[in-house]
């Protein structure tokens, strides 16, 4: 029991944590807020300065260059010229179809593989799941190099064919075509879909699958009606990531040596490095950036509406 004469403990004056200490409590409110804002700006200045120096300024230079004619005037004419060129339209078409095709391929293959790894118990499934993480750190050219070893004109597959038939050359010669690029991109980017899918599947209550099965649902129905709907946000995230990455992929296209496959990044490279046409290169680069940012924004809007 507290003694009747005991005095109530006094409450401490709250410290102004936003401004760093009790001394701030002596300052008038508006002045205190103004000082706090100034401090916040001072803290933000170094990262903003670094960002501006290494990213925003070069980006601004690229955009500025894209609006600069050969005569040094600022104009939208370079865009008209680039948009009118067949090379640009072909590159745009190739880029889009390769990116969309690769994304669809990655989504289908990634979903199938992730479903097997997550739900079909087999020896080594955990090791496979861990390998996916390691795979994500591989450089893209490594995959292309591996495919060259297997499917290249002098690769293993053709070697087996020539050994078996005595023919001078094997029938497999697709790696330097758009289909070769597609195969390489699907191979390389599929783990980028699998990773978020495996994370989503680890959250899925397996009791749902068991109950569905006891209710009479066969495995395909369970995949279609239980697993797939719950995987949609992860599929959306993985798919958007792959789409943006394949739109900008340069290494795989270059490494396959596919001369007839010109994507927007390859066009930037050829305009800038091979033709020294920096203005055209900058126009293509800006278009490439606009497509990437646009698609990413679209994904964000759609996923927010879907509640993902």
């Amino acid at each position, binding site marked *: 029991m507290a003694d009747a004469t005991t005095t109530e403990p006094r409450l401490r004056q709250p410290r102004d944590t936003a401004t760093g200490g009790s001394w701030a409590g002596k300052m008038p409110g508006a002045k205190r807020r103004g000082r706090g804002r100034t401090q916040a700006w001072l803290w933000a200045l170094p990262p903003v300065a670094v960002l501006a120096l290494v990213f925003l300024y070069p980006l601004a230079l690229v955009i500025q260059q894209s609006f600069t004619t050969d005569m040094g005037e600022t104009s939208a004419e370079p865009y008209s010229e680039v948009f009118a060129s067949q090379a640009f339209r072909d590159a745009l078409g190739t880029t889009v179809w390769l990116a969309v095709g690769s994304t669809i391929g990655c989504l289908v293959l990634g979903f199938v593989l992730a479903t097997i790894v997550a739900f079909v118990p087999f020896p080594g499934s955990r090791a496979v799941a861990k390998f996916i993480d390691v795979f994500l750190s591989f450089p893209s050219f490594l995959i292309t190099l591996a495919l060259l070893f297997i499917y290249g004109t002098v690769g293993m597959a053709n070697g087996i064919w020539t050994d078996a038939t005595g023919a001078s050359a094997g029938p497999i010669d697709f790696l330097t075509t758009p289909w070769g690029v597609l195969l390489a991109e699907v191979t390389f980017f599929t783990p980028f879909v699998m990773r978020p899918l495996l994370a989503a599947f680890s959250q899925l209550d397996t009791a749902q699958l068991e109950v*569905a*099965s006891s209710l009479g649902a066969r495995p395909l129905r369970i995949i279609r009606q239980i697993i797939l709907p*719950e995987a949609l946000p992860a599929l959306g995230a993985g798919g958007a990531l792959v789409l943006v990455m394949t739109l900008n992929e340069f290494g795989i296209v270059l490494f396959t040596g596919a001369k007839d496959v010109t994507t927007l990044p390859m066009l930037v490279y050829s305009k800038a490095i091979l033709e020294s046409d920096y203005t055209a290169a900058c126009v293509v680069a800006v278009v490439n950036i606009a497509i990437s940012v646009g698609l990413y924004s679209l994904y964000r809007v759609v996923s927010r509406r879907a509640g993902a």
Partner: protein
Amino acid sequence: MSAPAMTAAAPAAGTRASGIRFEGVSVAYGDTVVLDSLDLTVEPGEVMALLGPSGSGKTTALRAVAGFVTPASGRVFIGDRDVTGLPPYKRGVGMVVQQYALFPHMKVEDNVAFGLKAQKAPRGEIGGRVAEALRMTGMDAYAGRYPRELSGGQQQRVAIARALAIQPDVLLLDEPLSALDAQLRAGMLAELARLHRELPDLSILYVTHDQVEALTLADRIAVMDKARLRDCGTPQELYRRPATEFTASFVGNANLLRVAVADGAASLDGTRLEVSGDVTGTEGTLCVRPHLVGLGDGPNALRGAVTGLQWRGSSHRVTVAVAGQEVTAEVRELRTPPGLGDEVTVHFAAEDAHLLPQGGALRG
């Protein structure tokens, strides 16, 4: 939940009354045996509770019926059908689990219709059967809601409706009330009992570690421990005439006293005790429920010092040391309770004192 009357369209299993039969079912993971030679029969229309602590093998037994574990040996029958090798989707069982396992992206009505669509029920019938299952569980007003918009108790009712909608041969309930708070659990227990009265031909296998649920709901209780069936009988049999010390202590509280046996009676510290049960051999274990032990003189009186005293509102729990053993009496609240160390007398009636069978043999 209201108590709607069954209609002709109700999802009843009555036309196909089937029981469950385990014949020497064993399940092992590597060298670890999680279910050891289970022989058990659930009669058509019977509620059988599998009662036991964690790791006793009760859930494994249920999963063997559902088809989610494959027995290393033995057979599982649903009715006359050997389902041991059948995949889960061909067994025709309804299943309700602890965490409801509702499909979160489907509305309540779609959850309940899922099994009917999976079993390719005629389209014209699905709506009626879904409505009837929801009406039986009192969830008809929530058909258009998503699971996330429901409370735990409501979600569990939807899970039950989903299981009943397919008109299963047997219903498997795996700790269905464990995720609910005490008040909701009591309400759901009453609802499950009412549901079974409406569906008297539905066989139910009910897995629980809660003796109150088992005693309240089950026609018979199978007590399991360490992967084995330890006892099986009606709740009254298990409570009043347990076959093993484990059953006696797991199904309700019990005083288990080591006693000597001679001349058709037991004795403790030289005091002759009139008891019921298997009064043979030279020694045994006497089971007396605390609430059947009285304070003061009476039949089978034993004297000892008070070693524990708990006030429980309407009752007192008095623990008395008798010849090195403890006897606990649960008596109505005492106006003048004894103090610790006081000498008191406890007593119990002969018919309330059950001498456990030698070796704890299973009842037949």
